[in-house]
């Protein structure tokens, strides 16, 4: 389980010893251009769709009459639709895009599967679209983050098989045999997701287990999906980008290995901690809480490793993409601590089934995973497109909106949830007044979602400009070379 000394020294691929002549990074980036662009651009689109849906849902909590006559825009449908759009459309897709790039860069290989990934990526998008629409028309499965009906899940799975095989093949054909910690995280995530997804779909949709064990399986899936698919990829990205951005080697490989195995062993057990008080065997949530406590070890070792690798503040000032990464790392620590504190049985008795849980989930999804993926979109895209973001300032503004939005969502829902839970403890307080009492806090989170959306629109504008500068000349060259019409059309144009 010990990492080699050179792994810890290797601040990414540049110093890894290899007898082979190295392929220049620019060449690797160029080989990844179209697949990564397609995946990341698609993910940004879904992020905006998901956030718009989340905003609609939040508004409807304040004003029930808003769009009330439309069955497919009812709160109970747009909330899961939003979560699925963000988790599958944005997070999973962006994770895959960045993952391909990281595997190629770290393995020093050219990407070989452009066409397969382009097609499978489109298929993934179709799957998400079918799934989100199905949820909106009422075909949801009714299990958290597994709401997409079986036909949409089948499309996603088919797309993933291709994407995952391409990723594993890229991993296997790496020219640098030495593995950097990022690769462990990505490699594990690549296998966890399909296994979790098929097992959960089989046990909940195809051959459903009986009674409350559906809820146990659903909690197992949701926890694993967050911690061992998206979470592992996001951690892998942090382990790559922090040393890369600071230019210093990773502080400790063995410490990273310890964190990795801790997360792998205990992460999948922690999801059921949310079932405290639910009508399931008592030991199930207890095991979950114990696992969550063990995850604290991973949290601390990650924090120490990152702290000794980079000075956060310097990095924060350095460039705009780094801000997202540093903020994401901070949110990872905060979300981990918050979830552990809320899982303490005495506290869960009060805050269970309140907004507080939503707040921590929001922090994990938008703060940790979302920030890290957005940061890596900002980092990766100009490299694979060999261009520049149109406006560095827009990125900084996006970061401001993003960070403020995440904190508003987290603080609003956490405080609102704690107050809600404390009032629920007192049976003489009328339920309706408790529900109404949450309105200001839901309002804070609504504002937070709005800020996130504004930031995402700025990203979309920046992305559009970047792609336009890149695509226009590419199209012109293509036309000039293959049709001979590019130059003609350019002349004809006034």
């Amino acid at each position, binding site marked *: 389980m010990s990492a080699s000394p050179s792994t810890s020294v290797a601040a990414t691929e540049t110093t890894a010893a290899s007898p082979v002549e190295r392929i220049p990074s620019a060449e690797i980036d160029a080989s990844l251009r179209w697949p990564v662009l397609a995946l990341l651009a698609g993910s940004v689109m879904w992020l905006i769709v998901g956030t718009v849906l989340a905003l609609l849902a939040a508004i409807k909590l304040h004003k029930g009459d808003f769009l009330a006559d439309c069955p497919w825009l009812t709160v*109970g449908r747009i909330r*899961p639709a939003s979560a699925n759009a963000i988790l599958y459309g944005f997070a999973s897709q962006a994770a895959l895009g960045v993952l391909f790039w990281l595997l190629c860069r770290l393995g020093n290989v050219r990407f070989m599967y452009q066409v397969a990934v382009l097609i499978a990526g489109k298929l993934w998008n179709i799957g998400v679209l079918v799934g989100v629409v199905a949820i909106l028309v009422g075909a949801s499965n009714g299990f*958290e983050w597994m709401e997409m009906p079986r036909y949409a899940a089948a499309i996603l799975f088919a797309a993933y098989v291709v994407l995952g095989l391409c990723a594993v093949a890229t991993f296997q054909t790496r020219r640098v*045999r030495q593995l950097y910690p990022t690769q462990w995280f990505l490699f594990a995530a690549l296998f966890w997701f399909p296994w979790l997804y098929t097992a959960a779909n089989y*046990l909940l949709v195809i051959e459903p287990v009986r009674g409350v064990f559906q809820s146990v399986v659903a909690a197992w899936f949701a926890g694993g999906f967050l911690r061992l698919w998206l979470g592992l990829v996001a951690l892998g990205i942090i382990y790559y980008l922090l040393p890369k951005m600071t230019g210093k080697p990773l502080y400790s490989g063995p410490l990273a290995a310890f964190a990795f195995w801790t997360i*792998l062993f205990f992460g999948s057990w922690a999801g059921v901690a949310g079932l405290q008080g639910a009508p399931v065997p008592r030991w199930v949530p207890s095991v979950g809480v114990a696992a969550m406590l063990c995850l604290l070890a991973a949290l601390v070792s990650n924090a120490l490793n990152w702290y000794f690798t980079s000075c956060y503040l310097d990095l924060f000032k350095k460039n705009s993409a780094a801000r997202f990464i540093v903020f994401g790392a901070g949110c990872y620590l905060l979300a981990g601590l918050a979830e552990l504190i809320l899982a303490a049985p005495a506290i869960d008795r009060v805050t269970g089934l309140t907004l507080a849980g939503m707040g921590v989930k929001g922090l994990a999804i938008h703060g940790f995973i979302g920030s890290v993926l957005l940061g890596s979109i900002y980092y990766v895209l100009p490299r694979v497109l060999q261009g520049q973001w149109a406006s560095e300032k827009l990125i900084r503004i996006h970061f401001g909106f993003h960070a403020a939005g995440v904190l508003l969502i987290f603080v609003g829902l956490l405080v609102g949830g704690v107050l809600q839970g404390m009032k629920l403890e007192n049976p003489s307080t009328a339920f309706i007044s408790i529900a109404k009492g949450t309105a200001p806090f839901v309002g804070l989170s609504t504002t937070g979602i709005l800020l996130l959306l504004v930031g995402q629109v700025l990203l979309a504008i920046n992305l559009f400009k970047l792609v336009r500068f890149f695509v226009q000349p590419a199209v012109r060259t293509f036309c000039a070379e293959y049709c001979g019409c590019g130059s003609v059309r350019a002349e004809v144009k006034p």
Partner: protein
Amino acid sequence: MRIRSGGGEAMNNGPLLFLGVLITLASSFWGLVLAPQIQFGRQQPRLIEATGEYYPSPRPGLAERGAEVYRSLGCVECHSQQVRQSGVHFDVWVTELTTNITAAVPAVARLQSHLNEADVAKALGKLPARVAMGLDAADADDLAKKLTAAGATAKPALVALGPDIARNWGPRLSVSQDYLRDYPVQLGQLRLGPDLASYGTRQTNENLILLHLYEPTRTMPGSMMPPYRFLFAKKPYKFLDGVPTGTIVTKVATGESEESAGEVVVPKEDALALVAYLTSLKAETSLTEAPTPKVPAPPAPPAAPGQTPPLAPVPPVP
């Protein structure tokens, strides 16, 4: 430069890494999926001796369809279906006097030293009378035996505790037996609306539920619940007149405005199914692992064992 072997360092070894990933997944799958399945997977609907019926019994057809509507509309996003209980204690009730009251009063007062004889006499004047509260099982049993020996037939009665119970969200905690016939099980994670695990026991007025679905703020001022008007159709008033009574077209008690416009609001079948489902939510059957608290009945007709308790009157609030 094809594949060099993984070397001595474990973390550079792809297959070993794969094995690690496989083992961790298998362990959590075994622990959280298979183990509970082996432990409880064969749970079956149970014969309840008191009623001679199996619990949980299948929902009627319309309610079964309503469960689909409930799932499809995502009601679980705001409503939980799990009643929690923080604990139980026991009260002791005197149900019958085997001696005359003048002999019983001092006996009871002697056993319950904090009560004076006047209070005891007043309490025993109307049976059943609660003479002790908040005891644990052993103490309650002990006291009941002593009281019975002293001439006042007494029995301990279970009291479920906790805010959910006090809110009248259900008579007892929810247990896994309650969900055996549910698919999907909708335990829920958020209570922006009240818990619905036992909604059918506290709200039986179907018209009120329909009205609540149509316009929540009318039945519950200030409600945050969105209206589900799309589950209803507006029909000309004349049409309703033409419909013979007893069909599924139920008139919602809407306000004047709709009536005067010559239209009447009628629920679509989905709304009726949803209401049938909501009223079928009754997790109240007494089970060994979750006995339903029961206030002792007056002595005259002895209560049948296991009979569901008379429910306290509930304000007509969904």
